[in-house]
Structures are given as structure tokens and as C-alpha cells.
């Protein structure tokens, strides 16, 4: 037995108490959906997990109506302190049921249990705990005294971090005093439905949180619904564009967290072993199903060979396989559709002349699997250097000077994340200044925290989630429509208001 061989150590699924069929969660109750049901499967085995309801436009309408009633009758009349206490309850319930949620997440999504257990679910609890404390402190959110909630928020989330994305959406929305209708991704509805049970256990007033399941059609009905005041979407740039168009001309507020093609820049003065770990974390964490993944490795030319060699050595130790096994590093690709896209783009990369390499690994015969892959000799114009692959595929490019690194890193319509590896602080800060990306990790990668704003530049979307900025995305200033803060108004030249009126005749 070599040091890489372990006995299987699967996490038990005995603590799961799943229903065979889940309805929609509307107005505090599970109700049947009007459209045909669908099956959610484990991407690791392709085995059926549960039958899921599909919300029709009518069901979405009922969910929005429930959210509206809850907003007007209960949630907006509660004090911030009481709202906060509900959120604290949710945070605690998530902690109490943490292992169950982690197992369900790995089962439904395919991500390794060590990630759902140690990253996703703890962050979910942290997110609710963080925003719970904001609920009675909204005066400090940066919009002046007594800011108001927006109303009903329509939230559509992706399949890569199902429960975590739910927390990013619901926690700040509720803290700010909004009610929500959330649609989880078609392939990963399970933990959102378990969360609905937590909402019941927390005794949240009916209609404050509504969960509607379904595919793109359901999402469209939700986003286009005339009675929602806020739309928050995380997902692909293509869908984000569509939503931005559909929201145009309405008074709906919109935040979009879209795709990325993050550059991970490694300078020759970087601590190489740590950088290699960071590269692995950047692109193979969550099978590369990460919008902020470091999918482009920019390595200084003089250390290219050494970094690539050490990276290959490291990749040979990654364990790909059963997501529920505690030793697994890389789990299953989330869906057949996504696997197809990863295969297609990787084939294009090869066809365009890049050199493809994967460690030898036995992939299971059932389920959707893709071995960790790196491409060297990648040109900046190649599809694999430009398109978001959203899989465990790394494109390696080189640079000679910091200026070239910055130019290459910014040479993308996206602008979500970037990494910088160097031992020289002044260089890191100078490069960080010049990168056009919303989140920059220096000598680390893929760190998330509820206190830390997250979101993109350019075509990676707009608005921030996390921190004070993430809270403000669900609030409006106390003054009516024109968002003029009290401080700005008093600091303005006193004469201006009257003059403007006269001139405007």
C-alpha cells in the first residue's frame, strides 16, 4: 500500500432524513407544484435522490404574493432587533444541523464532503450570524439614518455552492427587512428545501422566505414578476445579460454576480510551495465550479518550468472520487451538461495547440467525472484562456514584467477575482492597484468571509455581496426615490435647490 492509498472512509448518510418528494415552500408550507416534477440526482452515481416540484408561473405568483403579504403584515412591522433574533436562530439551527446539510450538499452537488463540511456549511452559519447582527444597526449601513427595505426580493442562485449562495442572498435581504422568493438551481435544490425546514423550525413568520424549485422557466417567471422590488442573481454572464435587459425600464434594483476568468499571478520571488498550494486551491477547489476560480495561471517566465513541474507532482496526489469520502479532494462534475462543456472546451484547447496534461487517475464509471487538467503553452487568444470553463481546467500563461502580468490579467471582459503571489509587499500592493477585479487575494486564494465584500468589475456583474456593501444592496435611503443622503443634502450649497428649480422652468 503506497502512501496515497487509503481505505475508503465514506461519511455516513444515515443522518439524512430526506423526503421522497419535495413540494414548493410557499407561505410557510410545502405545497405541490403545478408543473411536472423532476428528479434530483447524485452526480457521482447518477442515482435518484428525491422528486422535486416545478413551480409554474402561477406558483411563482403565489410565492411573490405570499412574500408581499409577509412584507406588509409582519416582517416590515417587526423591529430590527426581532428580525435579527430570527436570523441568529437560523444561524444556530444551521450549526446544529451542519453535518446533515454537508452530507446532503455533497450528495446533491458532488463536491467533496471535506469542502461542504469545512467550508460551505460553516460559512452559511457565519453569513446568517454576521447579518443577524446588522438587522438592528441599519443606520450604520452607509445610507443615512433609518434606511428602508426594498420590499420583495427575487433571488436566483447557481448550483456550485447551493446552500452558501442561498445564505449570501437570504441573510442580508432579511436583515435589511425584505422578504424573499428564492429559486435554487435545477440540479441542486436539496439543501434549499432542507433550509425551508430550518425556516419552519426557527418559527419565521409565514411568507418571509419562499423557495420555488424548477428550471430556467421558473427563474424567468420570478425575475420578470411585476411585484418584485429587487432581483439578485448569481450565475452565468449570458443569463445575467438577459436579466439586465428584462429589468431595464422597471424600478427593480438589480445585483449580478456573474462569470469570471481569474488570473493567478505568480512572481519569481513567490514562496513556490505555497503558491502551488494556492494554484491548486484556486482552480481545483470545488472541481473548478467557482466563478472566481484562478483559471488562468500567469507565471513569471523564469520559474515557469519549476512551477509547472511542482504543480504536476502535486496534482498526482489529488484524490478524485466519491464526494462523500472524507479523503476526497476533487469530487464529481455537477451535471452531464457541464461535463460536456468542460470536455468540449478542453478539446478546443488541444486543437488550438495548447499542451494538455492530467495525472493518471481512475475515474468512477458511473457519474460525471473529469480529471484535473492543466494546459501549458496557451496563447492569450485561445478559447481556454478567454472562456470561462467552470471546471478543473487550468490554463498556464507566462509573463516577464509586472506590467505585462497586469496587462494579461486585465485582458478579459471579466473582472471578478485575481491572485498575486510574491514575497514583496510593495509589489503586491502596486499590482493589486492596477488589477481590474473585485476581489484580489495576495498569497492566498478563494477565501470568503461574510464581512468581506465580493463581486465583479466589468462583465462579471455589479453590486457586492458580503459586508456593509452587501447589506446596502437591499436597502434604500430614507428620503424618497433620488438617493440623496442627508449628509450630502446639508453639505450642498444652500442656494442650489431653489436655483435649480428656477432654471428648470
Amino acid at each position, binding site marked *: 500500500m503506497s502512501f496515497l492509498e487509503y481505505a475508503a472512509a465514506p461519511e455516513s448518510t444515515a443522518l439524512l432524513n430526506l423526503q421522497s418528494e419535495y413540494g414548493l415552500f410557499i407561505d410557510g408550507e410545502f405545497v405541490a407544484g403545478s408543473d411536472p416534477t423532476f428528479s434530483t440526482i447524485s452526480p457521482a452515481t447518477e442515482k435518484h435522490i428525491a422528486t422535486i416540484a416545478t413551480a409554474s408561473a402561477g406558483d411563482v405568483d403565489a410565492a411573490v404574493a405570499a412574500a408581499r403579504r409577509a412584507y406588509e403584515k409582519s416582517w416590515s412591522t417587526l423591529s430590527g432587533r426581532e428580525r435579527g433574533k430570527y436570523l441568529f436562530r437560523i444561524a444556530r439551527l444551521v450549526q446544529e444541523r451542519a453535518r446533515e446539510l454537508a452530507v446532503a450538499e455533497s450528495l446533491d452537488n458532488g463536491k467533496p464532503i471535506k469542502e461542504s463540511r469545512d467550508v460551505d456549511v460553516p460559512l452559511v452559519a457565519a453569513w446568517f450570524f454576521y447579518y443577524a447582527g446588522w438587522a438592528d444597526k441599519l443606520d450604520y449601513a452607509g445610507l443615512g439614518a433609518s434606511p428602508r427595505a426594498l420590499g420583495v426580493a427575487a433571488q436566483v442562485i447557481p448550483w456550485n455552492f447551493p446552500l452558501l449562495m442561498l445564505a449570501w442572498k437570504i441573510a442580508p435581504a432579511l436583515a435589511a427587512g425584505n422578504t424573499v422568493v428564492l429559486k435554487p438551481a435545477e440540479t441542486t435544490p436539496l439543501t434549499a428545501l432542507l433550509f425551508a425546514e430550518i425556516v419552519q423550525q426557527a418559527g419565521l413568520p409565514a411568507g418571509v422566505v419562499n423557495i420555488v424549485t424548477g428550471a430556467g422557466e421558473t427563474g424567468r417567471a420570478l425575475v420578470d414578476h411585476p411585484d418584485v422590488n429587487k432581483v439578485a442573481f448569481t450565475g452565468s454572464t449570458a443569463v445575467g445579460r438577459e436579466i439586465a435587459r428584462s429589468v431595464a425600464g422597471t424600478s427593480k434594483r438589480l445585483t449580478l454576480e456573474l462569470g469570471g476568468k481569474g488570473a493567478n499571478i505568480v512572481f519569481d520571488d513567490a514562496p513556490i510551495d505555497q503558491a502551488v498550494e494556492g494554484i491548486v486551491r484556486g482552480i481545483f477547489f470545488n472541481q473548478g465550479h467557482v466563478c472566481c476560480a484562478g483559471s488562468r495561471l500567469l507565471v513569471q517566465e523564469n520559474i515557469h518550468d519549476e512551477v509547472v513541474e511542482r504543480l504536476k507532482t502535486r496534482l498526482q496526489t489529488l484524490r478524485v472520487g466519491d464526494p462523500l469520502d472524507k479523503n476526497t479532494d476533487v469530487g464529481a462534475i455537477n451535471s452531464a451538461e457541464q461535463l460536456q462543456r468542460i470536455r468540449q472546451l478542453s478539446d478546443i484547447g488541444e486543437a488550438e495547440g495548447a499542451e494538455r496534461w492530467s495525472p493518471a487517475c481512475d475515474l468512477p464509471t458511473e457519474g460525471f467525472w473529469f480529471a484535473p487538467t492543466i494546459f501549458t503553452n496557451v496563447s492569450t487568444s485561445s478559447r481556454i484562456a478567454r472562456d470561462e470553463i467552470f471546471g478543473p481546467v487550468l490554463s498556464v500563461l507566462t509573463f516577464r514584467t509586472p506590467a505585462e502580468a497586469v496587462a494579461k490579467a486585465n485582458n478579459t471582459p471579466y473582472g471578478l477575482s485575481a491572485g498575486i503571489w510574491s514575497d514583496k509587499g510593495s509589489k503586491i500592493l502596486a499590482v493589486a492597484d492596477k488589477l481590474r477585479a473585485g476581489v484580489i487575494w495576495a498569497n492566498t486564494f478563494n477565501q470568503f468571509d461574510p464581512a468581506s465584500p465580493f463581486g465583479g468589475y466589468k462583465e462579471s456583474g455589479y453590486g457586492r455581496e458580503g459586508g456593509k*456593501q452587501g447589506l446596502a444592496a437591499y436597502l434604500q435611503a430614507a428620503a424618497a426615490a433620488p*438617493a440623496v443622503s442627508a449628509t450630502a443634502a446639508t453639505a*450642498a450649497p444652500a442656494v442650489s435647490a431653489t436655483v435649480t428649480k*428656477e432654471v428648470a422652468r
Partner: protein
Amino acid sequence: MSRLAVLKTYKLYIGGKFPRSESGRVYEIVGSSGEFLANAALASRKDARDAVVAARGAVSGWSKATGYNRGQVLYRIAELLEGRRAQFVDEIVAVEGVNSAVAAAQVDAAIDRWIWYAGWADKYVQVAGNANAVSGPFFNISVPEPTGVVAIIAPQDSSLLGLVSAIAPALVSGNAVVVVASERFALSAISLAEVLATSDVPGGVVNVLTGSPAEIAPWLASHADVNALDLLGAGELDWVDLQIAAAETLKRVLPPEGGSSAAAAAPSLERITAFTETKTVWHTKSLI
């Protein structure tokens, strides 16, 4: 015998220069009683694109300047405006048909507004940014940065105050702007461009187009190298179509707010931060 006045040729302002429209087109600016005042350049799609190129080229230098430096440059504009106060008052009287007291009040308010915004250049980061206490050994800070190239449809119902209210906040953080001036009240916009050209604002940071907003705005809204769109003065246009066009490259869009657009552009920190992006930087701390 009275002296014959020397009239001014009003042109566009692109990349720090005053070109005529490449299309060769002009349109008449008339006074409140319909009398001819001047021929203004009727900017074309090509002019708009040239202006975007100029703006893109100026972003790097302007956004890299220190807040203190940008603040002084913006303050300098107010100094020069003050010196040419009489010229702006005369133009506003002629174009808008208001009396000189009303025109003077508009000019004074515009000058004071420059100063108000100039003072923000080295402060908005402190107010809109923050240090973040994350759960781990990391230094973590969020700062607002300029979005890039901002295309602005200026208020159509104001010569100078509306224009200043729209462009000044975008400039504070280091954006470069392409502004489509008021179609009817375009003279002050070009006179302001003369002030900008003789102040310390680098060429290309502000680009002024005169002509038909209805004609030019769609090209700016769909231009892939424009990062944000301020529809402040687009209330009379088919602005929903502009917002839809802007979605193609996920531009940040500030829709019109209804009512008088000049009045809607009251000075606010929000008008500055609307054209900024929050950048969050994580840095490891060693464990000692």
C-alpha cells in the same frame, strides 16, 4: 460707429482638442425668441466613438492621480469659471431667456458645486471604503475605484448647472467621461470645455459632444468600451432601449429619475459612488 463683434465658432471637445464634427454637420442654436445665436457641431456616431477612444486613453492617468491632485485640478476649474462668470451669464441669458440674476445664480451654483465635488476627491474612499474584520489571519480592505469610461446624457433643461452636476461626480473618483450636452442649451457646454482645456484637466478626461442626444446616445449605450451610462438627461428619449442596449456589456446604468433632470442631480455622495467599483484585497498575515 459701433464695433462689429467677433463671433465664436462652437466645436466639439474630444481628447483635449476642439474638432468640428467629422460629418461636417452643424445645427442652429437659437435664443429664447428664436434668433440665431450660433452653429453648433452636430456630432455623429464617429465623433462619439472618437470621444470614447479619447476617454479610454485618459482613464489610466486620471485614475492614477492622487485624490489630492484630482481635488486640486477640479478646484482649479472652479477658479477659472469664476473668472469667466460674465461670459457664462451672458450665454445663459441669451439661450435660456432668463434674466441675468437668474443666470448668475445658476453660474454661482455651478461653481460652488465644482468646489463641493472637488473636496470629495481625497475623502470619498474613506467614507465608502472599509477595513473588514474577517475570521482568519488576513489583512482585508475594501476600497472604491473608478468604473472607467462613463457616458453621460446631460440634463437638457439646464445650460451649466445640470452639466456640471452630471460630470463632476463622475470625475471625482477618476473616471473619464463622454458627455452629450443639452441639445438646445449647448453653448455653455462648449464654453465649459474651453475652461477645461485651459485648466489642468488632462485631455480626454472630459469629452463634450453637442448635437442630438437621440442620435448619439444609442451608439454610446451599445459601445463595448463604455463601462457606465448616466441617463440623467435622457428622460425624454427612449431610455429603456438605451438601458437594454447597455446590458450587452453589463454597463452600470443610472436611469433618469423623472421630473427636472437638473434638479434630480442634487449633489450627493451617491452620484460619486454610482460610478465606482468596490475592490477587496486580502493579504495573508504571518503567524508569529
